[in-house]
């Protein structure tokens, strides 16, 4: 249970996802499961796709028709709780927030982990956005095999002991 171990269940995760059809284009998936006083996702979205509303404690609601999957909310979310997903044939393209050094580089193979931190597959880094705008929360673009759509969440940090 997420309240005990911090791991969202499969049902919880799937409930936040758009349909497979909608995922032909990139869409942000917001995993903000508990009410907390926070709304930068709403105020940072250039397309008004995310609504928290008057009470900043309410959970964000996303309109997938408006979401372009740009990823701006991903690096503005203080909880690092937003990921962009897109299905591209047999691959899932992801944009994840990443706050570790060294940053991966374009073309790197990386270990992809699930929400419990277990290695599930290998992924490839396609792009790293880490400019002024990202303000120290890099946006990593990567691809993973399509089977891992609902499991893949981030990448393993470069090993502690080098």
């Amino acid at each position: 249970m997420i309240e005990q171990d911090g791991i969202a269940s499969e049902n919880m995760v799937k409930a936040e996802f758009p349909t497979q059809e909608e995922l032909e284009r990139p869409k942000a998936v917001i995993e903000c499961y508990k009410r907390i006083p926070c709304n930068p996702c709403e105020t940072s979205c250039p397309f008004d796709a995310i609504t928290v509303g008057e009470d900043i404690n309410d959970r964000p609601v996303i309109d997938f028709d408006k979401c372009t999957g740009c990823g701006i909310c991903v690096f503005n979310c203080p909880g690092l709780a937003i990921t962009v997903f897109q299905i591209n044939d047999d691959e899932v393209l992801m944009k994840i927030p990443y706050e570790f050094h060294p940053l991966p580089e374009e073309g790197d193979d990386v270990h992809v982990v699930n929400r419990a931190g277990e290695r599930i597959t290998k992924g490839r880094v396609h792009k790293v956005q880490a400019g002024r705008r990202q303000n120290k929360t890099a946006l990593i673009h990567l691809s993973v095999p399509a089977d891992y759509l609902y499991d893949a969440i981030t990448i393993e940090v470069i090993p502690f002991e080098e």
Partner: protein
Amino acid sequence: MVTSECVIVGGGPAGLSAAKELLEAGARVTIIDRNERLGGQLIKQTHMFFGSEKQYASHRGIDILEYLVNDLAPYGDRLEIRTGTTVAAIYQDKVLGCLKDEKYFKIKAESVIIATGASEKALPFENNDLPGVYAAGAVQTLMNEYGIKPGQKVLMVGSGNIGLIVGYQLLQAGIEVKALVEAADRIGGYLVHASKIRRLGVPVLPKTSIKRAIGEDAVEAAEIWSLDENWQGIPGTEKKLDVDTICIAVGLSPLTELLQQTGVRVEYVRELGGNVPLLDEGYRTTVDKVYACGDVANIEEASSAMVEGRITGIHAARDLGHEVENAGFRIKALQHELYDLRGGPPGEKVRQGIKKREVLA
């Protein structure tokens, strides 16, 4: 004797925010902080803040510190900043006895704002005095302020936001976090913070606590065990963790010692973190022209401390006879910000505590 219209003790988020309002209203302000740099805990807060744009949400604490200090720059001629200075005593005529570089001097203030923040709670367990047992704030200071790793393998005790955030920052520093234990049956802080460390492989263990630290001259291992319904350790459930550092994040206590020297009424309100001053809606204590805001008044996030500081500053300025433009409207807007920040489940405890305090006052 040096004099000041308003002395603010503590240059953290609450104190700096109060200073800005007072300066804007035309007051002469002295900020005293025992650290060499202003900012209080913001100095080491490398994570993005929650809240809304009004409290700089999604900006990092270290950047917010700069905004707050820059806000004071235009008023340099009326502002005196005394860092590296400890207020050792406050007398009832608002004379503050201060220590700087082993030298003692006095400041006479017309009004005093106490924004001293909080200290970390300790946890009793066997060998908790071994080197390698740290409070979470100390670990944060070592890593984020001085760039020093406290150790290589850490056990984090406590799943409030501090434990979760410092756990993540340990990972960012390249330190292994073997586990995060929580005595209660659920995570205390924001779930998004917990998920952040869980997906990086840190086990988050509820109903679990530290039994003892193991080691001769320093921590060589930690023993954790499961707790029963009555928060008692269950014999036979002990597990030994290979760690060299134990990080304690089990809550904060308001630092009210100075405040109490002024003779203000203080009451124990568990939901606010312990002994806290009785306050009116303007953050006035029971002693004329002595105010308290931020963590010293109630343990909360820095976002709320900033808003409280601003409300306090406006009231303190008016009480000194300065005119504050649109004061009524602005206070209402700031109170609304607090209402928003405290409106959800994480704010429930503080809401209850403030109600209790109102009844006591």
